[in-house]
């Protein structure tokens, strides 16, 4: 092939993120020839951490990724599980952390746009978005700025495209101050037999690029932003952040689904990180074929773009499909109906090569296998840290919390990690598409109705969670807790888990203590998935989340999807009726260490979390789930941040009713009230229904009744007595940020 100008050298390779060894491997993969500018740009992206998972792939292989109701597993744009009635639900969570740290509005918006495309790339109609956010503490102006603009960006994209944002979570902790996390999850619905894969096939078939034109935005995003630590001067990386256009994406989505509906596509792939480079190489690799792409046929929005820029541009709202030549007219007609531009830019070949042409001239030629398979995979070198990685949280509470437990409860309700998320959720549309049976704040999990089957009204429930601070304390148990927490959320809605997706947000894996966090966390994830009996359907890894100030808390964000047979009986978290009895269900063994109260008190992270008896936790989840499904409970809520007292307060506030509760743990009242640890539920209902939950190794303690407009809790000498009004005021603390 012809050389284009002088060849770049190893310095350019290193500037683009490759190591010297990797550069030499590239030369080896090309048969001893140094890569030209186009090739080097493509290799540097596909061999970046973001695209190649070179530090995590070996670990990810240890996760259970088959069995259960899986119909589409890892490796596709999104995984999917069977939900009965010939339908499947596709879902995935993905990060957009570094772009959001640099430009939060567009970073978050295009994070939503990217995950939506992953879902409709498998043919599914996106029906729900959830998000998982982490920022520094709110007394930092930067954190407030990032929060405000990230939330606005998520809303801008999701609201405009007409996909409901049905849930999410957010935490504010010091280690995220300089490296916020923006993870977005999308769930889609599809007839199982219509699922489409991304493998290109059939030499002679055409590659059609459709959607937005290609510009210089987002060039090098995967390597420059996503695969390196953040540092000084990141503002200058703003041109690496893509700009979102939800209107273009909405047309692109409807167009893609219409093309699929008409059976016009052989394969479909979205353009995300590394743009055309990644899409073309992945499609060719999966299909065991080659592709020719002519950059001169790619519609551009800027003049004078170089071939390498066209190949690596991360311009948003674009899809690449493979079609049979006979279908071209029909494909173009569908695209025209949706006012979506489409161009043939190349074809499938039997060469096993990715060839990049610029009109008549060949400007790059690489074996598909070299691009996709030859990237070296690295073994992690994990080593448990010998000293604390994280500084103790900043102390917020003056007292130990014991002197006035009522004030302590108010302080917890006011804490940004516990306060009502409504001021954020109000900026998202949760009801469009008319499926949402439980909106944010109504149940521990979002609940969506599936199409009715005769008299049956089946549905799905979705939860997303991941408490980084507890994972930092104990990566193995903290990750198990996060999975069980999601499963508990589903149980409260009446749903049984079907499949799990995850986004592993960690620091620099080349550092032994981060490698240790990652390894332990994945071990916990694998054990937890096996315990709840669900496959990992796919996910995302985001590494290098650290800067000069140190790493983020290790944050595996877990997204869990489950099914419920009857959405008319979906669970609710708020107390419903005066006189209902209240019970504490499950093997709840709270500890103050690692709790939100410990954080407010400025206490260091513990070096491990209490052991969880997974079998007993799952037994408790089972009885709660069954009781919710049978309609015998008035409310169900799992005990999480802030412990039992906060859980009770949340049930009161959601239902607008008070409660009187007496706890028999009188030795350590603080621990009984505010200690944390998985496995516990607060449920309400008739006494007989509550007593029926016991047995089979499931502990049930009836602790009080729903009554009046105050929450009263006795725990030995300690007594809390607070009006709903005072609790509501404290719980509404985040409102002030958005006034």
């Amino acid at each position, binding site marked *: 092939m012809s050389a284009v100008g002088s060849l770049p050298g190893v310095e350019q390779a290193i500037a683009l993120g490759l190591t010297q060894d990797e550069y030499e491997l590239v030369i080896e993969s090309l048969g001893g020839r140094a890569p030209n500018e186009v090739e080097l740009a493509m290799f540097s992206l596909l061999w970046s951490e973001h695209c190649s998972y070179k530090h995590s792939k070996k670990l990810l292989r240890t996760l259970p990724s088959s069995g259960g109701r899986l119909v589409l597993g890892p490796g596709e744009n999104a995984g999917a599980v069977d939900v009965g009635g010939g339908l499947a639900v596709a879902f995935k969570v993905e990060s957009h952390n570094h772009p959001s740290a640099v430009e939060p509005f567009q970073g978050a918006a295009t994070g939503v746009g990217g995950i939506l495309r992953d879902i409709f790339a498998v043919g599914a109609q996106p029906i729900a978005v959830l998000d998982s956010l982490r920022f520094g503490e709110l007394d930092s102006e930067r954190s407030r700025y990032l929060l405000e603009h990230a939330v*606005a960006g998520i*809303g*801008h994209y999701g*609201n*405009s*495209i*007409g996909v409901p944002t049905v849930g999410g979570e957010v935490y504010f902790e010091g280690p995220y101050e300089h490296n916020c996390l923006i993870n977005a999850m999308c769930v889609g619905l599809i007839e199982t037999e219509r699922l489409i894969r991304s493998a290109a096939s059939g030499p002679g078939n055409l590659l059609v690029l459709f959607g937005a034109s290609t510009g210089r935005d987002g060039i090098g995003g995967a390597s420059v932003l996503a695969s390196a630590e953040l540092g000084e001067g990141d503002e200058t990386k703003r041109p690496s952040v893509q700009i979102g*256009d*939800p*209107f*273009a994406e*909405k*047309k692109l989505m409807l167009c893609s689904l219409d093309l699929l509906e008409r059976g016009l596509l052989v394969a479909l792939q979205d353009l995300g990180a590394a743009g055309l480079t990644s899409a073309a190489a992945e499609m060719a690799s999966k299909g065991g074929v080659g592709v020719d792409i002519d950059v001169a046929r790619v519609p551009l929005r800027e003049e004078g773009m170089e071939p390498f820029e066209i190949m690596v541009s991360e311009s948003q709202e674009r899809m690449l499909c493979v079609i049979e030549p006979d279908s071209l007219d029909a494909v173009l007609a569908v695209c025209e109906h*949706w*006012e979506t531009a489409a161009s043939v830019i190349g074809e499938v070949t039997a060469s096993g090569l990715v060839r990049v042409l610029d009109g008549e001239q060949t400007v790059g030629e690489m074996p598909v296998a070299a691009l996709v398979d030859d990237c070296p995979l690295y073994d992690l070198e994990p080593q448990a840290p010998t000293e604390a990685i994280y500084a103790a949280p900043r102390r917020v509470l003056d007292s130990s919390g014991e002197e006035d437990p009522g004030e302590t409860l108010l302080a917890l309700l006011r804490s940004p990690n516990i306060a009502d998320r409504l001021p954020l*959720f*109000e*900026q*998202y*549309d*949760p*009801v*469009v*598409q*008319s*499926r*949402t*049976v439980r*909106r944010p704040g109504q149940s521990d999990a979002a609940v969506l*109705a599936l199409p009715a089957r005769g008299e049956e*009204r089946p549905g799905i429930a979705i939860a997303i969670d991941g408490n980084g601070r507890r994972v930092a304390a104990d990566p193995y148990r903290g990750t198990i807790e996060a999975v069980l927490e999601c499963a508990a959320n589903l149980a409260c809605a009446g749903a049984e888990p079907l499949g799990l997706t995850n986004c592993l947000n960690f620091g620099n894996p080349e550092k032994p203590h981060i490698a240790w966090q990652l390894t332990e966390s994945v071990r916990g994830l694998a054990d937890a998935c096996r315990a709840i009996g669900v496959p990992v359907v796919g996910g995302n890894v985001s590494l290098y989340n650290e800067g000069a100030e140190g790493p983020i808390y290790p944050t595996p964000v877990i997204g869990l999807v489950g099914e419920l047979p009857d*959405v*008319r009986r979906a669970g609710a978290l708020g107390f419903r009726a005066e006189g209902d009895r209240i019970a504490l269900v499950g093997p709840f063994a709270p500890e103050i260490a690692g709790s939100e109260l410990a954080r407010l008190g400025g206490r260091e992270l513990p070096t491990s979390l209490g052991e969880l008896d997974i079998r007993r936790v799952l037994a408790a989840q089972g009885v709660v789930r069954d009781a919710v499904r049978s309609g015998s409970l008035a409310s169900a809520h799992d005990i999480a941040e802030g412990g039992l007292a906060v859980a009770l307060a949340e049930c009161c506030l959601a239902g607008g009713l008070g409660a009187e509760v007496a706890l028999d743990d009188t030795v350590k009242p603080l621990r009984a009230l505010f200690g944390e640890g998985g496995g516990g539920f607060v449920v309400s209902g008739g006494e007989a229904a509550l007593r029926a939950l016991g047995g089979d190794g499931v502990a049930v303690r009836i602790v009080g009744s729903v009554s009046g407009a105050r929450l009263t809790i006795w725990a030995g000498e300690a007594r809390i007595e607070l009006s709903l009004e005072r609790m509501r005021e404290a719980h509404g603390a985040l409102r002030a940020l*958005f*006034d």
Partner: protein
Amino acid sequence: MKFGVISFPGSCDDSDALAACSRVGEAVQLWHADHDLAGVDAIVVPGGFSYGDYLRAGAIARFAPIMTEVIEFAHEGGYVMGICNGFQVCCEAGLLPGALLTNISRRFVFRQVRVRVLGEPTAFTSGLTPGAELSIPVKHTTGRYFAPRATLARLHAAGQVVLSYAPGQNPNGSLDDIAGIVNEARNVFGLMPHPEHAVDELTGSTDGLSLFASLAAVAAA
């Protein structure tokens, strides 16, 4: 009784409106690029972000091919219900007085609000008692109703303010808590709340259904 629901590129709640109308009558989709109203008895201009709403909410949709027929249909007395973005489109098209401005908060707001049915009955509220309160969600960034004082006075005097946010419920800073108005001829109705998202107990409330049912009953009569 046959409803037509317009789909512009960027409409979001068109399917929801179609489903809501189907509960009380026949409902068909009307495509923005057509010039054909398919013989419908009433038109719903739905919510969403028509053409992306990058210029000004509703400002481009007002020039959509099908709007020629919609405007003519309205001038001939045909029933038109503009919901949220549809209300904005109707104002831009001159079918309704006033304008929708950016919310006081300058933010998107989703909220289940209580709205009151006011004034003389209209085709859209014929099945409801004045003073009745409905629980219906709002979701918009551009929902603050504005009109010059003289126009407002005329609207109030003529009983054209059909829906108002209940005390303390105004989510956007609309003047006089106005949530929905009709034109002078009372056949075009614009409202910011989304009645199509309040037609099923399972998803929140059934209070919005009465607006569609009222229209179906009157239009069929």
